[in-house]
């Protein structure tokens, strides 16, 4: 979790310094979900994510230097600088990618789950999305088919109570995302996403069941988004948490491990990642033409 925290804090700094470019959505406060879920998975389990994806990619195994280089638009980035923050992909580690269109990633995970099921393996697909994605039609379409086909897919909702700049209560009368799927034969659970152990325990139960032929499942993780919707968001629509309130929801503080060595090690690692990313050149323009179509 410290690796993700240190990474995100550095990305915030580099965004303000105009070294990281574009629309950047940080996951500070959500590390417990990323680690609790991805830590239980294998490389051959496919993960999809949304626009707030840095933590998921790193938790799934993407090297921080390559993620940071991608955010800086460099050749050495995960996607050679063609993707950016909202389009991270690391196939080697089963991170099939982030998507910038809210909710658009959900059916992709069903497709990967279908491929896994037809191939006869025990691997699963997981998709992260926010509570804002649930009000879209494609979410309902996907939930219906996932249930109908009993696919080995685990839907992980990070419910931070805000869809971009608007509280959930202004968008829907259904408070809990897990209740949205209530009519379907989908195992569902709402957990405290700031408690990494609780996430890991709940997710592992779903994972074991999915590997044994079950599915689909929905795990709703209640989280706190420490920052704004994006870097630069003035957040006039909500009040910042006081420091003691933040400590009560901070997944790292709540873990209760008072070992600064882990934090220092993570910060050193991110220093090194930044050094590597900065050393990478911007990609050559010829890359564009080569990658529009697969050969």
């Amino acid at each position: 979790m410290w690796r993700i925290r240190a990474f995100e804090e550095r990305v915030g700094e580099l965004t303000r310094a105009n070294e990281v470019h574009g629309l950047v959505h940080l996951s500070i406060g959500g590390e417990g979900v990323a680690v609790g879920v991805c830590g239980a998975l294998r490389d051959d389990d496919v993960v999809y994510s949304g626009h707030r994806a840095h933590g998921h990619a790193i938790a799934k195994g993407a090297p921080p230097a390559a993620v940071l280089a991608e955010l800086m638009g460099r050749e050495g980035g995960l996607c050679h600088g063609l993707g950016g923050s909202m389009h991270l992909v690391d196939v080697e580690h089963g991170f099939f990618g982030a998507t910038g269109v809210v909710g658009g990633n959900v059916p992709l995970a069903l497709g990967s789950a279908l491929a896994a099921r037809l191939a006869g393996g025990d691997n699963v697909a997981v998709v992260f999305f926010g509570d804002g994605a649930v009000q879209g039609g494609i979410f309902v379409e996907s939930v219906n088919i996932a249930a109908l086909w009993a696919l080995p897919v685990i839907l992980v909702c990070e419910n931070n109570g805000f869809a971009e700049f608007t509280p959930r209560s202004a968008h829907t009368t259904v408070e809990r995302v897990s209740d949205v799927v209530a009519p379907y034969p989908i195992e569902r659970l709402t957990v405290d996403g700031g408690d990494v152990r609780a996430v890991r325990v709940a997710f592992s139960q779903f994972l074991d069941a999915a590997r044994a032929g079950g599915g689909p499942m929905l795990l709703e993780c209640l989280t706190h988004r420490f920052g704004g919707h994006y870097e630069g968001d003035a957040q006039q629509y909500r009040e910042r948490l006081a420091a003691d309130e933040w400590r009560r929801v901070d997944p790292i503080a709540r873990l209760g491990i008072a070992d600064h060595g882990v934090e220092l090690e993570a910060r050193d690692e991110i220093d090194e990642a930044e050094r590597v990313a900065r050393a990478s050149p911007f990609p050559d323009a010829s890359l564009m033409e080569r990658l529009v179509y697969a050969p």
Partner: protein
Amino acid sequence: MTSYIEAIAAALADAMRADARVLVLGEDVAEGGPWGATAGLADEFGRDRVRDTPISEAAICGIAIGAAQSGLRPVVEIMFVDFVTLALDQLVNQAAKAHFMSGGQLTVPLVLRTQGGAGQRGGAQHSQSLEAWLTHVPGLKVVMPSTASDAAALLRAAIADPNPVVVVENKTLYFRREELSDEPVELGRAGVVRPGRDATVVALSRLVPEALAAADELAADGLELEVIDPRTLVPLDLDTIVESVRRTHRLVVAHEAVEHGGFGAELAAQVQAAAFDELDAPVGRVGAPFSPVPFSPPLEDAYLPGRAEIVQAVQAL
């Protein structure tokens, strides 16, 4: 003699026999579909590989993309091209860009079969020709076969291609019968359907047989049309078209889609950029008026461009 739709069904079955990764998804596909394009597939290959879906075009398309990224070769059917609107996020934002945005890590070997065109009194939401939208999206390939032979051969090529390919069939061609040809057809290769010396007509889909009828009519007046079917809009075989224009010096582009913003505009622009000095007249365009497709039969008949409009456009050159 084989019909266009039978040729498609046979090509799908061949592809599924040859490659266990090929699966078919769509509304009513296990029942054969409304025209029979998937008839018999569920019996031979089972419902794991011939999957009926709910009426959820966006999710169907997204599932196929995920499956393709995970190693399968899905062939999705969207029953009418009019409904591709419901799947455009998946097609445009996900499928078309996955290879590029991932720096080449992901590939999406997906085929999306659909059909368009008017002439069956379907009204404005079941009769459109929307191929130009699709050709505007880098990362998609777009195929529009006009014959049974091409429909089969291009479908096979699309399934073998590592990229997302949209195959836009035409409902009025489905039951036309022909002897299947063995001519090898690949994506991005136009066909010179009828050689001629006086003017070139590049026609898409249903307007290919209409252009051939126009050529017959004009031949009686001693005017020899060369009719070219690009077959694949993206990638486009511009060379074959330009080579023809260098001989005929006159060009008409013809499609059923609304002329305004249609693919014919792109064809005209590319040809004039490549061979402006070869043209003896401005490129003529044939397309539908800037209107939704009307329902009332006499209005729909008047709306549809065909042989007469092609003849008129050639004579106006």
